[in-house]
């Protein structure tokens, strides 16, 4: 596709369940980022993938959060044993090479944990 695609757009899950969020970056973009955003707030960095380098996982809030990027393209963010405080919009972005170039964002996945 022409832009960054995220799925699902909305997800409601019960506390304690696992969820997987998917991001399809723009083809050819080597950098991929995941951010979390609470209502009306700024972006909280979660994880960064750059090419074949080891990902920067320094923003993951707990060991319940993990992410992978297969084949340098699609990425999946997994949250295990979800908690109510995990409720937020999860945004994915990709850029052509690395930071300093324009980051293109998906529309996000709104996660609600009930």
């Amino acid at each position, binding site marked *: 596709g022409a832009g*960054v695609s995220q799925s699902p757009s909305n997800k409601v899950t019960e506390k304690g369940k696992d969820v997987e969020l998917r991001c399809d970056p723009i083809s050819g973009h080597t*950098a991929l*980022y995941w*951010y979390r955003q609470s209502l*009306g*707030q*700024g*972006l909280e*960095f979660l994880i*960064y993938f*750059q090419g074949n380098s080891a990902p*920067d996982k320094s923003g993951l809030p707990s060991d319940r959060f993990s992410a992978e990027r297969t084949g340098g393209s699609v990425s999946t963010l997994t949250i295990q044993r979800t908690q109510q405080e995990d409720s937020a919009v999860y*945004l994915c*972005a990709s*850029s052509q090479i*690395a*930071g*300093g170039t*324009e*980051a*293109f*964002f*998906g*529309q*996000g996945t709104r996660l609600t944990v009930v």
Partner: protein
Amino acid sequence: TQLLEQSPQFLSIQEGENLTVYCNSSSVFSSLQWYRQEPGEGPVLLVTVVTGGEVKKLKRLTFQFGDARKDSSLHITAAQPGDTGLYLCAGVPLNTGNQFYFGTGTSLTVIP
């Protein structure tokens, strides 16, 4: 600890007023970007400033990069309701790899 601090965090003004949003850091950046995010959408790039002291204009929006490349400002003249949104600065600090850092955000509401 946030690498990029924005102020104010929230701003509500009347249509036609002017405003300035600030983005500050103790780190030096090779470039800084400004994004605007509308409800239900991802952020969209407005401008990139690269040279210390650089000023860029985009219609009623004026962006400035500090001489020391540690800060930036966004000035909006005669704000319109269509300017409502979340404004985010972002950049990659020098000598810290390639991770993109976003500011804390400024939520702007322009009242008709």
